[in-house]
């Protein structure tokens, strides 16, 4: 469904991605893990059209989408929830959701979608007419996910959805992602909570310094790669 081939991205003079290739198949939940600064967010932003790749190809459903503007990418069916969530703070919850469904332009369907979101996130239903900046961190994360779902994406990209959330909410987010996946959504997930991520994903890519360092099924990755060393460094006494 989505295939990145040899993608290079530069941030000014910084080389953020050095030839990343990965693919996501229909109905899969693929995770990107790796230490901070490994290039996970950069990869998502590049797919979403916020960053332009310096080289390589991105094919989505058989068509090249590399370098398209963000407003075009979402129309192809790729929705992204940024790490910072980017809730429109002065707008109400309802208005945020309305913009989420902007590309659909169908009032009947909008009502049905809205009901579905309220079903999925009851708390948002209670706060529809409240300004979004009055929501708590966890509620804002739910709103960000709901807003992305409003566009009926074929591929949903989540960048660190558990970031900054209290432990109980972290569990909630993972359950939610697992549920969306179970309902058939194709998902590309970036997470730093490795243990939880490996429990729910189908396949995983490990990024290290802008490159794919390992990939495979979660259990294989655990067996063949010392994941802990990626995050906590090699043991000095082992050297």
């Amino acid at each position, binding site marked *: 469904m989505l295939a990145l081939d040899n993608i290079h991205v530069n941030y000014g003079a910084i080389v953020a991605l050095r030839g990343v290739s990965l693919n996501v198949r229909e109905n899969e939940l693929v995770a990107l893990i790796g230490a901070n600064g490994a290039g996970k967010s950069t990869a998502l932003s590049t797919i*979403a*059209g*916020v960053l332009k790749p310096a080289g390589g190809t991105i094919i989505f459903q058989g068509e090249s989408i590399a370098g398209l*503007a*963000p*407003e075009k*990418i*979402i*129309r192809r069916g790729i*929705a*992204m929830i*940024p790490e910072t969530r*980017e809730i*429109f*703070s*002065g*707008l109400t919850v309802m*208005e*945020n959701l*309305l*913009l*989420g469904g*902007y*590309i659909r332009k169908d009032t009947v369907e909008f009502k049905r979608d809205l009901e579905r979101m309220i079903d999925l996130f009851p708390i948002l239903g209670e706060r529809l007419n409240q*300004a979004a*900046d009055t929501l708590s961190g966890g509620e804002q994360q739910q709103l960000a996910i709901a*807003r992305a779902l409003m*566009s009926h994406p074929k591929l949903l990209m989540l960048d660190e959805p558990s970031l900054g959330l209290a432990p109980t909410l972290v569990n909630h987010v993972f359950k939610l992602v697992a549920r969306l996946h179970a309902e058939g959504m194709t998902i590309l997930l970036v997470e730093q909570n490795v243990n939880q991520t490996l429990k729910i994903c189908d396949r995983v890519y490990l990024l290290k310094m802008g490159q794919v360092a390992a990939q495979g099924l979660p259990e294989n990755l655990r067996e063949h790669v010392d994941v802990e060393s990626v995050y906590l460094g090699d043991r000095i006494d082992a050297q």
Partner: protein
Amino acid sequence: MSFGSFLQFLIDTLSLGSLYALMALGMVIVYGILRLVNFAYGEYIMVAGYTLFLLSQSPVPWLIMALLSVLAAVGASYLTERVAFRPVREQTVTAMLITSFAVSTLYQNAALLFISPRAKLVPLPDIFSKSIVFAGLVVPLRNILAIIVTFALLGFFALLLKRTIIGIALRAAADKFTMTRMLGIPANLVIGAAFAIHGLLAGVVALFWFGRIGSVTPGIGLAPLLVAFIATVIGGMRSLLGAVVGGYVLALINVAFNNLLTQNFLEYRDAFTFSLVILILLLRPEGLVRAR
């Protein structure tokens, strides 16, 4: 203060403030999204004025002329964005500001070259020269009209921004521009809409502005531009409501100065109001109404 003079004061403030509020609102709509203080804003009023003048020989009714001149202001605003601002959008705020200053000069001198340096009379409907007598006061009808039209427009824009998808998108874009694009709202649509509203408000203000002064010159845009500057700073540069409040507050200050200051001091009125601008930017950089 007698009831009569109070009423006079109120109507003066409201009618002047209405124009100021519309000016400021148009300024803030663009500023909120692009961080651009557009020096060419006053020139859209000039464009509307010359359109009226050029149409004055034609047989069309005044309302059509008015409509066409407002459209001309919208066109000028949209065109400027397309040709001059879009290519420098990615650059610094200062580069955009200088561009707008250059555009302003360009418009003014185009008017000098292609029309005339001399003042040209603008056609006005009869209703603008009529007055009504109310509670012992003679009130020009155009002042009442200005108040009504402004309130109607403000209501219209409040609805537009609150209820329509493009209005909501405009508010969202002023908050987080990239995210609006990631939801599929084209950047150029939002910015184009902002500049269209920018021009529309300038065009409407132009009708009443010329209603007060009767003629158009190439340099006519400066005074309303200054008004928009001050009102936005007073009200808060990032808040739409603030702009409207700022407009009325500025009118209140001006009308009060007119009534209170002696002739000697009145000459320095601009110096006073602009010192006030500096003071507000220093003491309360966000203006009276804070952005949410």
